[in-house]
């Protein structure tokens, strides 16, 4: 794999291959971070798109030369984007449909509606469970969330996450422990949704 600094140089010059490589490298982390914070996949995808468009528009000004700094930069864009999303929602009235909720095929988390294995009851349960997961992850501190994204989704080691957050390795280990412990406490023993479907969560999330 090409060294990140060379890749960054080429991306700054606007070379498509380098931008694609960076995008593929950070997409799982950015999407995972956002998906764990917003109520449905469609929103997560919209916000992820915004983050990467911003990345393309501002990468020429990026001074980072190592992966941890780039990850920190992109997650910062993601954090601000999610915060903007919730700020916007605060000013919008919540619409509650009187019609029975219909699943939007494009907004499905995994299994299409016409899947013979589709079980509406299970889907509703999965929705409620994921709702709880989103709330639990939103209840974490920002640095705890970023540690989980760095360690579990981007697969970085403790040292890289420490550089990403500007903290010491022991602090990252402590944050990782506290994040998982808090999730455990908030979620209890309930299982994670295996195949959650589209969510229509309108409750106001925690402050960012």
């Amino acid at each position: 794999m090409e060294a990140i600094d060379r890749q960054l140089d080429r991306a700054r010059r606007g070379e498509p291959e380098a931008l694609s490589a960076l995008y593929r490298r950070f997409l799982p982390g950015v999407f995972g971070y956002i998906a764990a914070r917003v109520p449905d996949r469609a929103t997560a995808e919209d916000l992820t798109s915004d983050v990467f468009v911003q990345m393309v528009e501002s990468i020429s000004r990026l001074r980072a030369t190592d992966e941890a700094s780039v990850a920190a930069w992109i997650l910062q864009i993601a954090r601000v984007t999610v915060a903007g999303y919730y700020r916007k929602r605060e000013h919008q009235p919540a619409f509650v449909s009187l019609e029975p909720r219909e699943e939007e095929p494009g907004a499905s988390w995994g299994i299409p509606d016409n899947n013979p294995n589709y079980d509406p009851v299970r889907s509703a349960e999965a929705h409620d469970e994921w709702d709880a997961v989103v709330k639990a992850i939103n209840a974490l501190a920002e640095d705890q969330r970023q540690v989980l994204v760095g360690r579990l989704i981007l697969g970085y080691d403790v040292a890289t996450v420490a550089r990403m957050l500007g903290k010491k390795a022991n602090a990252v280990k402590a944050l990782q422990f506290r994040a998982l412990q808090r999730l455990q406490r908030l979620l209890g023993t309930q299982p994670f949704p295996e195949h959650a479907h589209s969510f229509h969560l309108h409750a106001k999330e925690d402050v960012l």
Partner: protein
Amino acid sequence: MKPLPERLNERLEQRNARSSCGEEPSVSALTRDPEADALVALALRVQSAPPLRVDPAFARHLEQRILVRNAALHLEQPVRGWSFPRLLRAHPVFRVALGLCLLLLLLGTGALLLPAQATNPDSPLYVVKHWEQQVQISLAHSPENQAHLDLQFAQDRLKTLVTLADAAHLQAYSEALAELDQQLSAAARASDALPAGAEHDRVASQLATLQAEARHTLRGLLPQLALPERLLTTDELGRLGDTVPHLVSVEMVLPAHQSGQATISIAGDDLQPGAQLLVDSRLVEGTGSFQNGRYVFVANWAGNQPPQRLGILNPDGTAAQTTTITLNSSDEHGNGNGNSNGNGNGNGKP
């Protein structure tokens, strides 16, 4: 036993290592540690939760979108290949050069700002300040610009003068007053050199305003000045068009004997009632009468030599003095007979 955060991390690392080797990560494969294992299991669930996984179709679509956006950006900014920040990033030598330039600029600015604050003509920095101003004037790219600079520097001289109007800075005051005069003359010349038009009128108006301000300021300084500086300041006020005394003729009738009373008759313009007699730049007690624009003073005279300079000090603080004196010796009948010598000091008319 290690603390739980440490144990948890070790287990996550082991799991990641197995995962990267292609082995199926499994909590049960490790030595049992129920507390840590529960958290690792939770971590695994978070990691593998489908809602956190990217949909491949979305990923492809977004990649195309950002590449299109990138292409559009490059079309909008075709000359992005050369930019100052990029040059700095690409070539560290430019950073060093820029740093040196900034340092020199800072030092240079400091070196120029320090003299700019120097107000005392005795200070070496004042010389530098003058030099700076001369350079600025010589670099002025248009007569208008030069006229504005001349006005600005004249204003600067006037401010300097105010700080020197005390007994401790007699010499400096005199020099600063001479510089003010030069600078005002330069500003007047620059104004006259401008072609007729709006800019000429504007500069002329600014010059007139400055001259009025200078007259007002100099008059205000008069009470604080010693007599020699008052005489110089009165000269300058006269050049600025103010009403100051001008001596037309000065006659002195010395007493017939070595000690007696001398009669000094001073004629001139703008002599004010209540003026005092000046003999060799000193105030002299004497009885004076003012009639038809002529002062006649009678004062005790004990000297052998006639005075070099005679003059008056008006009640408003302006003073005039001249060395052009017609000397007469009085006979027993009071008739004078003598000669004249000397020249004016600026306010006397020989």
